[in-house]
């Protein structure tokens, strides 16, 4: 066993530090209020868009379900999404009306739902001329998950854009594509439209996870 040598040798490349599960107490580090810890002045949390953010303000929510059909109550999720114009705001700033990045967690009690308040992202043109449908990248960490899982959330009222999206199209099985499509419903908190998507880690209805 050796310390990673900071001067690349051999194949001219260092090996990536290996991943380990975030464990059941991930909240202490990344979601302090959930752990029951006092929050610091600025925390990264689940409101990506304030009232004055440009675009349609929405809520996205769902559960995380394991291979037994049980709720995963200790998951931490990260969102990365474009703003309403399809641009990523890379400079995270809690004073800004919109941030592209946020975190949320499933709850230990009750319905165990994670939730983000955000705006609906715009479509994103790629250099090859194809357009990706509006989507939110989601990263999932949890006890029992050795290396975080990466997926995307799409919107069910973007039928045409979804049909042309090259990333959805890369999923061979049309049935499996449906595992990424959030369903719109009215009556989110504060009257926001809500899009709902359950993430299924294993088995029937298993969510598509990406490698990139």
């Amino acid at each position: 066993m050796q310390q990673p040598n900071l001067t690349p040798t051999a194949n001219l490349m260092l090996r990536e530090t290996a991943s380990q599960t975030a464990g059941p107490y991930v909240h202490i580090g990344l979601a302090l209020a959930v752990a029951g810890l006092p929050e610091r002045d600025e925390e990264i949390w689940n409101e990506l868009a304030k009232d004055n953010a440009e675009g349609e303000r929405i809520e996205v929510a769902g559960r995380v379900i394991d291979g037994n059909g049980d709720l995963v109550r200790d998951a931490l999720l990260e969102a990365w999404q474009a703003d309403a114009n399809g641009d990523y705001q890379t400079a995270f700033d809690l004073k800004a009306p919109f941030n592209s990045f946020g975190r949320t967690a499933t709850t230990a009690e009750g319905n165990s739902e994670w939730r983000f308040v955000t705006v609906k992202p715009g479509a994103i043109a790629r250099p090859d001329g194809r357009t990706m449908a509006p989507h939110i990248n989601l990263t999932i960490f949890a006890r029992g998950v050795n290396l975080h899982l990466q997926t995307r959330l799409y919107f069910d009222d973007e039928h045409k854009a979804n049909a042309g999206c090259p990333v959805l199209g890369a999923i061979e099985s049309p049935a499996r594509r449906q595992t990424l499509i959030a369903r719109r419903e009215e009556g989110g908190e504060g009257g926001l439209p809500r899009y709902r998507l359950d993430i299924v880690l294993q088995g029937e209805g298993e969510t598509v996870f990406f490698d990139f």
Partner: protein
Amino acid sequence: MTLNRNLNRRFVERDRQWHPAAYTPGYKTSVPRSPSQALVSLQTPSVSELTGPEFSRLRMGPHDNDLLLNFRDADSPGLPVGERVIMFGRVVDQFGKPVPQTLVEMWQANAGGHYRHKKDSYLAPLDPNFGGVGRCLTDDDGWYHFRTIKPGPYPWPNGINTWRPAHIHVSVMGPAISTRLITQMYFEGDPLIPICPIVQTLKDEEAVGTMIGRLDMARSRPMDALAYRFDLVVRGELQTYFENQ
């Protein structure tokens, strides 16, 4: 506008044989939480994967990287119990290039092996002077450091008598969500490391070596704290012909 540069950015492929597999039955919770379908590989990663948040505007508290002091308040003005430790290192990519201004976060149990988390019911007591969370940005050369106490090992329900080696959970963002990584730092020489089912999710001894904090006497503070060095290597950014654009 950095769109062109970002879109032509590429990262070294993540070696999924090096990292733990999703399904590792020795670590029981992975059994129902591991996908059974193959991952869908994005042959052409897009701006959605090749960019990520940058946190230099995140306002940190003065003691966010000092766990000896950051849980102090009027009711608990003392210092935490335990071995005082400096944990430090450098975040570099696979080509040895420092990753500046990237967010490093960490969390840990107290010296008795108890987390300040409402779901942790281990019988070792909480320490009134210890919270167990830290964060900082790397400097311009990729260095980070924390001041803390060495966490205790703790038992957990996997086998009948399973113990975690002393460890600190570490989260690093890197330049894009493609480089996102969460790991754990173990302490050099801990006899619990090789028998831990979570460590054993890794097949490669050398991969385990990337998670070991090494005692560094030269960086230790006499009569104060031992230092452990823990370098983090994130996926390398490949240089492309558009980089000067």
